[in-house]
């Protein structure tokens, strides 16, 4: 008998307005544990606004959002306990090493690991061993994104919110990042990723949503759509 998958991320009639201008309109989203939901859309479509609302960085005008049933506004700190966030540019403390940054951010989440454990997480995230002790100011963007993944792994995050994480990464680094997401998927992590990269969305995602002017105009399963169909669908919605 199949178990009903747990809903990891849920939004109900979520609306966000800025000075009367609609940034997100009545978003109803449901992402299950182990899903990778890729949000596509042009700039200003509402992708980042959705992530900001789920992170409680901004307050919704109306509607609700939940992470594993925990209201992100009413119980923000509780909702963040098993949540990891990787923005387009993961800015860390440049004067600290990768391992020190990881230690600090995990400490903020109330987690304490030995040096060996931290190194193991960095290794799992794909960071080369000789970079662990180097100051982050010497890291490439791809290396910094890997610290974000290590953070998610060590935090045992159940939900991962990614805001254009592969933007600016070279194809190899982008591919490595996708593999890491797949690994997290195997750990039953629910991922919501805002991206412009149709190829990566098709390769990595389990679900694809297309946003336009604050509306989620299309939702589909990745397995049911080919690369060319996805591109056509995307352009159709964007051009309309």
């Amino acid at each position, binding site marked *: 008998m199949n178990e009903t998958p747990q809903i990891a991320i849920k939004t109900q009639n979520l609306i966000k307005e800025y000075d009367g201008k609609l940034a997100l309109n009545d978003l109803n989203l449901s992402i299950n544990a182990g899903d990778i939901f890729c949000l596509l859309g042009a700039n200003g479509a509402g992708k980042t606004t959705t992530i900001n609302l789920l*992170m409680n*960085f901004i307050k919704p005008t109306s509607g609700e959002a939940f992470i594993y049933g925990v209201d992100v506004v009413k119980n923000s700190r509780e909702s963040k306990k098993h949540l990891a*966030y990787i*923005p387009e540019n993961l*800015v860390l*403390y440049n004067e600290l090493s990768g391992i020190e940054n990881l230690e600090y*951010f995990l*400490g903020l*989440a*109330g987690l304490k690991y030995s040096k060996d454990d931290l190194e193991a997480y960095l290794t799992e995230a794909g960071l080369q061993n000789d970079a662990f002790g180097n100051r982050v100011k010497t890291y490439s963007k791809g290396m910094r994104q890997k610290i974000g993944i290590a953070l998610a792994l060590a935090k045992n995050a159940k939900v991962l919110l990614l805001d254009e994480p592969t933007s600016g990464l070279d194809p190899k680094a982008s591919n490595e990042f996708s593999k890491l997401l797949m690994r997290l998927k195997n750990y039953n992590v629910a991922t919501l990723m805002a991206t412009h990269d149709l190829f990566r969305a098709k390769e990595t995602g389990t679900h694809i949503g297309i946003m336009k002017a604050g509306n989620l105009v299309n939702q589909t399963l990745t397995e049911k759509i080919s690369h060319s169909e996805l591109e056509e669908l995307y352009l159709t919605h964007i051009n309309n």
Partner: protein
Amino acid sequence: MLIQNIRHEIRLLSRSSWFLALSVLFTLLCLYAGYNGMKLFESRAVELEKAKADQSALFERVVNIAEAVENGETPDDSYRLSPMNMSIATGTLAYLQTDLLSAVAIGQSDLYTHQIKVSAREDLATLTFTEMSNPVQLLFGNFDLAFVLTYLIPLIIIAFTYNLQSQELESGRLRLLASNPINPRLWLFQRYLTRYISLGFILSVAVILTLSVISVQPSYRIAGMLLITFVYMVFWFALSFVINVYGTSSAKNAIVLLSFWIVLVLVIPAVVNQATNIIHPAPSRVILLNEIRETKKELSEKQDQVLAEYLRNHPELVRDDEENRFAYWQGFFASQEIMENQLSGLIQEFDEQLAEQQKLVNTWRFLSPSILFQTSFTDMAGTSTRQYNDFKSSVKEFTQQWREHFLPMVFDNRMLTLDDLNKLPAFEYNSTFESKTLTFNVLALILISGLILMSGFKKNHINFQL
């Protein structure tokens, strides 16, 4: 989270070359300020020792003459034994003992004299306690430890903290930080706390090093000075915390904090100073001096009448001896008291206005933390205006006592003996000044800082966008 944040901040600071350079610079500034204060203290001490030696030599000379007279000799300069000569030309020295703490806070010590020749000829109203000072130095103040702490510490705190949150916001790191289950306000507060402890530690090292270089021994006064300094720092940290909480960009925060510095450290103290002069203008000293001259002139014109009137009021000084006819000096002493009585209203008005001015400054000191800090700091160092006023009253009282001591001898028209010289009154300054400002000012600064911090914690929403 606190331990985590402390470790993190210390790591960041220890790797910041800017912070390390600032710490060294601050220590050097403290040492230079201490050296400056010490130089002034030493020159004061030398001046005082010289004045004491000169006075002692002068007195010794009179004693030698008295001894010669007692031995039956008639020295040429026996006139020095006359009460007029002794009370006026020889006089005595009133002085304020040098205090090493004045090297830490020069305060009013460069403006007021620490030693004054007490002479029966002096008019109490015109006793001058101020010294000729370098006007440029008076304008800008001395570069002493009090200056470093009053003016520079707030600037260092601003430079050190103006972007503690805004930098995180501008770099985008604030989002990453806030993606953790933390209270961002508490997180920021803990960063401030760590920086406060770090800067406090550097300040303590710099100050203790400076004090040991200038050989100041630890005392409750030093403890008081350190206490008010740490509380003054709390105020500036609290202000920076609130500006970071309500502000957005680092540039704006820096401008707002510097504006606060200008207003609180420079503008308000100057305005309070100006306002006291406008609200309670001191009567012109020129008018006072003119009145004294006029009165003296009038009295000298009717010397006989004055003397007669004076003797009516002081029958104990009346002498029957025809040979000892009263002459100039008796008239002088008599007219001096009458003049002081006649001018007492004006002198009192002068003193009252100065007291009112001081009262007003005391009331308005709450407008600026730097006034609160400086008042207590100089009070503890013993160089505040109020302490010098206390010394002034003590000298005036003694001058009166000195004059009165010689009066019977002047009217007896007799020379002083060795025994008289041994019984001369000596000035001994017992400070009646009590510094009550420390506790009050510390509590006031804590209260103000507490309210500022609370307003920072009151803001619920955090801006994650510039």
